[in-house]
C-alpha cells in the first residue's frame, strides 16, 4: 500500500503544478492587462516569478519539501518587490493580479504541505505572510480588504483539499486491503472448484461418451438406452455441482453397497449400468471401505473402468467380477473374467487398451497394475493404489 501513497503524492504534485501554473498565468495576465505596473516592478519581481515557475515545474518529478519552499519564497519575493516598488495601495487591476498570485498560485503548494508537522509549519507561515503582504499591498483605511480575505480563504480551501487527499486515501487503503483478502479467498475457492471438477474424470469420461453419441444424433444406439444413460449422466453432473466434498477430504465408499447416496456410489453404479447396457454384467465384491483421497480414488476407478472395457471387447463373456479389498497400506481391485484369455508372451500390454494415460495416472498417484492371463483360462488384472 505504500505504492498507493506514492501515487497519491504524485497526484498531489501534479495538481500543484496544474493549479499553480494556472494561477500564476492568470495573475500575470491581470497585471499585464490591468496596466499600472511600473516597468521597474517587472525587473524587481522577475527573479521571484522565475523561482515560482521553476518550483511549479520541478515539483511534478520531486516530492522534496524544498520545491514548495522555493516556490513560496519566489511568490513572496514578488509580493515584497511590489510592496517596495509600487505606489500603495495598488490599483484595482494589479490588486486582482496580486490576489490571484497569493490566493491561487501560491496556495497550490498547500496540496503537498498539509502533511506532517514540519510541512504544516511552512503552510502556516506562508498563509500568514501572504495574507499580511496582500493586506499591506491593497489595504488603505479599512482593515481586511476583500483581497486579503480571499487570499486567506484560498489558502484554507487548498489546505482542506490537501488534507482530504491525504486522509481519504488512508481510509480507502483499509477497504482495498479487505477487498484484496476477498480476492485471495475467491481465487483459492475458484482454484479448488476447478481442481475438483477436473478431478472428476471418470464422470467426465462417461459424459463425454454420451455427448459423442449425441453428436451423431444418437444414431445406432437403442433410444431407450441412450435416454437412460443421458439421465444418469445428468444426475451425476447435478451431484458434482451440489457436492460439498472438497478435494482434500476423504471419500468413503462401501463397495458391498455401491448404491449409497454419495456421488461416488452413483458413479460406481453408473459404471455398472453403462456396461450393463453394452452387454457386460459387472459384479462388485468385497466389503472394504475405500478411504482414499478423491484424486487417487478417481484414478483407481478410471483404471477399473478401462479394464472392464477391455473385458467387454476381448474376453467374449457376458460377465466380469470386480473384487475390492484393502490392507494397511493399499487398496486393491481384482478384475476377473472367465473369457478367452491370451498368451502374455505374445501380446504386448500396450495393445490391451489399458490406455497409457490410465496406467500413467495410476502411477502418478503411486499405484500399480499387474496382469495375469493364459489362453482359455480368462484374465485377471490387479490394480493397487496406496491408502495415503
Amino acid at each position, binding site marked *: 500500500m505504500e505504492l498507493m501513497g506514492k*501515487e497519491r503524492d504524485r497526484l498531489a504534485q501534479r495538481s500543484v503544478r496544474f493549479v499553480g501554473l494556472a494561477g500564476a498565468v492568470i495573475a500575470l495576465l491581470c497585471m499585464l492587462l490591468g496596466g499600472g505596473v511600473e516597468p521597474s516592478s517587472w525587473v524587481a519581481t522577475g527573479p521571484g516569478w522565475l523561482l515560482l515557475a521553476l518550483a511549479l515545474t520541478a515539483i511534478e518529478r520531486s516530492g522534496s519539501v524544498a520545491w514548495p519552499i522555493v516556490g513560496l519564497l519566489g511568490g513572496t519575493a514578488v509580493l515584497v518587490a511590489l510592496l517596495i516598488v509600487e505606489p500603495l495601495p495598488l490599483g484595482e487591476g494589479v490588486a486582482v493580479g496580486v490576489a490571484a498570485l497569493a490566493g491561487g498560485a501560491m496556495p497550490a503548494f498547500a496540496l503537498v504541505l498539509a502533511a506532517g508537522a514540519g510541512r504544516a509549519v511552512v503552510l502556516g507561515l506562508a498563509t500568514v505572510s501572504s495574507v499580511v503582504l496582500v493586506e499591506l499591498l491593497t489595504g488603505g483605511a479599512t482593515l481586511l480588504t476583500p483581497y486579503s480575505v480571499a487570499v486567506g480563504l484560498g489558502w484554507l480551501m487548498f489546505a482542506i483539499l490537501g488534507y482530504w487527499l491525504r486522509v481519504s486515501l488512508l481510509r480507502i487503503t483499509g477497504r482495498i486491503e479487505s477487498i484484496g483478502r476477498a480476492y485471495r479467498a475467491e481465487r483459492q475457492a475458484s482454484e479448488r472448484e476447478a481442481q475438483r471438477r477436473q478431478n472428476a474424470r471418470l464422470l467426465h469420461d462417461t459424459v463425454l461418451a454420451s455427448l459423442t453419441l449425441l453428436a451423431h*444424433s444418437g444414431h445406432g444406439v437403442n433410444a431407450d438406452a441412450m435416454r437412460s444413460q443421458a439421465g444418469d449422466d445428468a444426475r451425476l453432473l447435478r451431484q458434482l455441482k451440489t457436492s460439498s466434498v472438497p478435494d482434500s477430504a476423504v471419500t468413503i465408499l462401501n463397495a458391498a453397497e455401491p448404491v449409497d447416496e454419495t456421488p461416488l456410489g452413483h458413479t460406481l453404479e453408473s459404471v455398472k449400468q453403462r456396461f450393463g447396457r453394452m452387454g457386460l454384467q459387472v459384479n462388485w465384491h468385497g466389503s472394504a471401505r475405500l478411504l482414499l483421497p478423491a484424486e487417487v480414488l478417481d484414478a483407481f476407478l478410471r483404471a477399473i473402468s478401462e479394464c472392464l472395457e477391455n473385458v467387454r471387447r476381448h474376453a467374449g463373456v457376458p460377465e466380469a467380477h470386480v473384487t475390492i479389498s484393502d490392507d494397511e497400506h493399499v487398496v486393491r481391485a481384482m478384475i476377473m473374467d472367465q473369457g478367452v484369455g491370451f498368451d502374455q508372451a505374445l501380446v504386448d500390454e500396450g495393445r490391451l487398451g489399458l490406455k497409457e494415460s490410465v496406467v500413467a495416472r495410476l502411477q502418478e498417484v503411486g499405484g500399480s497394475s499387474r496382469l495375469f492371463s493364459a489362453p482359455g483360462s480368462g484374465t485377471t488384472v490387479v490394480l493397487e493404489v496406496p491408502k495415503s
Partner: protein
Amino acid sequence: MSLGIDETTLTGIGGRTGVGRRRVRTRSTIAARRVHSAGVGSASPIVLAAILCGVQVFFGVAVLVANWSAHPLPLLAAAAWAVLLFAEATLAVIVSYNGERLPTGLFVFFLTALGVAVLLDLVSIWSVEDIGGYASASIGAGFALLLTIAQRRRREIVIAIAVLGVALLAAILLTTPLTAATLPSQLIALCLACLPAAIGLYVVGGFRAIVQRALDRVLVQSTIAGPRLAFGMLASEELARLDAAAEELLESVADGRRPLPLDAASASRAATIATELRLHLLDGRKQSWLYHAVSESEVLGPTVRLSDPHTLAGLLDQHQRDGLLTAVWLLSSELQRSGISISLGPVRPQPPGAPQDRRKLVPIVIEVEGSSRGGVDPATWDELSKVGTFHDSVKQQVLRVEIECWVADPAEA
C-alpha cells in the same frame, strides 16, 4: 495461447441458451467489483465539496452584504443566493440519504436551479457595466458544481462548466466595456466560476485512477500465493458452465424434450460442448501465476508480453514473485505507453564446480521499450533485487534487465 483457443471456440456456442451469457456474467462480476470500487473512492468527496462550497458561500455573501448599498438590485442578488443555497442543501441531503448516488432527475433539477440563480444574479447586475466586479451567486454556482463531481460523469460536468463560462462571458461582452481597469476582474470572475470544478475534476479523476489501480493491484497480488500452476479465476467458472450446458442437454434428452434421433442443431451443440469439455480437461490448461496476473490485470494486460514456455515462473518463491510482480508493476505504471516483455528460461545448467545445493538457475529478462534508466522509479531496483542478482543496460531506447533467479529444483522438492 490456451486462452485464445477457448475464446474462439466459445463463440461457437455463444448466443444459444445460457452458455454464452454465463461467460458474460463471469466478466461482469469482476466488472461489478470494479464499479463498486468507484464507490470506495467517492464516499467523501461530497463532504469535501460541501466544505469548500460553504467557505465560498461565506465569502460571496459577505461581499454582497458589504456592497449592499452600492449594488443596483441587492434583493434580486440575495434571491439568487437563496435559490443557490436551496439547491445545494437539497442536493446534499438527498445524496447523503441516497447512498452517495445522484439520480439524473435530481441532477437536472440541480442544474436548472443553478441556471436560475445565475440568471437572477446576472439580471441584478446588468446595469452596472461590471459583471466581473459584482457577480456573486454566479461564481457560487461554479463552486456548487463541485458537489456533483464524484457522482456524475466527467462529460456532464465539463458541459455544465462550459455553459456557465459561456453565459458569464456573453454577459460580460454584452454589458461591460473592456478597459484596463475592468479587464482583470472580468478575467478573475470567469476563472473563479470555472476553475474550481475543473480542478475538482482533475483531482477526483486522478484519485479514482489511483483507487482503480490499487484494486487492480490487489487482484493481481492475490496470484502470488498460488501453486506452481493454476487454472486461473475464470477456468472453474468455465468448467462449471460447460458442465451445466452438458447437464441441460443430457437432461432434455433423458426426459424426451429433445427427441431421438437428435436434430442437427442439437447434435452440433453436443459436439461443441464435448470438444470444449475435452479442451478444458487437458492438464496443459494450467498456467503459472504470472500468466494469470498479467492476463487478469487491466494495467499489465495491455502492456506486458510474457514468454514463459516452460511455466518457470511457478518455481519462484513468494518473496521472489512479489518482487518481480511489483517491479513489473512499477515499470508499467511509470511508462504507461511503452511495451514490456518478460521472458523466463531456459533453465541453465549448474556451472561446473558449483556447489550442489539442489537449486536451479532461471534467467529472467525484462525489456522495456522507449525507456531510460533514469525514468524508472528507484523502488523498482529494490524489488528486482528480491528476485535475484541483476544487471541492466540501455541500448537503442530499450532498457534490458537480466536477472539471475535461483529457485528450488522442482525435481528435488
